[in-house]
């Protein structure tokens, strides 16, 4: 199965994700980058930190890839999530989806980030000048899909 799925330390590389999905029979590539932002809910954020249940998170990314292939008909998918400290302005997640036509690429990419945020066992900690807090999503039931 084509596709690149990874959860781990180290800076993310958009070019790597695009290379992993590109090919001569694909007319469209849609990408999404989640970036560490310097504020949240009115509070200044100085860095982010991510933790994952790594083997389950990687399995979840592969599951999301299989869902995209089934729904949008393309197997050309890259989903990379960074762990550990992520500096402001750096990418915490990069997704790329390529397809023959733009609709499948764009909707597949959007589906990927929405699903990742809903079900991937990954957690974000926001660090402020004084203190830090674990962010917790709203998802009451990731199994209800």
């Amino acid at each position, binding site marked *: 199965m084509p596709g690149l799925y990874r959860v781990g330390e180290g800076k993310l590389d958009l070019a790597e994700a695009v290379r992993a999905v590109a090919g001569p029979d694909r007319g469209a590539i849609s990408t999404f980058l*989640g970036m560490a932002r310097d504020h949240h809910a009115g509070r200044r954020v100085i860095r982010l930190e*991510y*933790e*994952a*249940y790594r*083997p*389950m*998170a990687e*399995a979840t990314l592969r599951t999301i890839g299989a869902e995209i292939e089934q729904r949008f008909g393309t197997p050309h998918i890259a989903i990379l*999530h960074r762990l550990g400290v992520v500096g402001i302005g750096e990418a*915490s*997640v990069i997704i790329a989806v390529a397809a023959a036509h733009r609709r499948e690429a764009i909707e597949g990419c959007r589906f990927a*980030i929405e699903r*990742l*945020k*809903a*079900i*991937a*066992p*990954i*957690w*974000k*900690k926001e660090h402020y000048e004084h203190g830090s807090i*674990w*962010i*917790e*999503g*709203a*998802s*009451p039931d*990731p*199994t209800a899909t």
Partner: protein
Amino acid sequence: MTKCTVLLFARYAELAGAPSLEVEVPEGATLGDLWDRVRKMVPALRDETRPLLACDRAYARPDTAIPVGGGEIAAFPPVSGG
């Protein structure tokens, strides 16, 4: 009794002061039974009545039976990746 390892993540791991706990439960116990046991063992987790639960790296409901041999059980708060 079955001896289980429960993996904890993010805030749960911080509250417990450890990334995993060893717990013994009776044969036929469910994930929910196991979590009730964890909450009794670790006072800091007492108020966490609705964790997300996973068994062998897949989400599972509290009424899921613990696999023979224990399996790989995890409990964690709502996810926030992305």
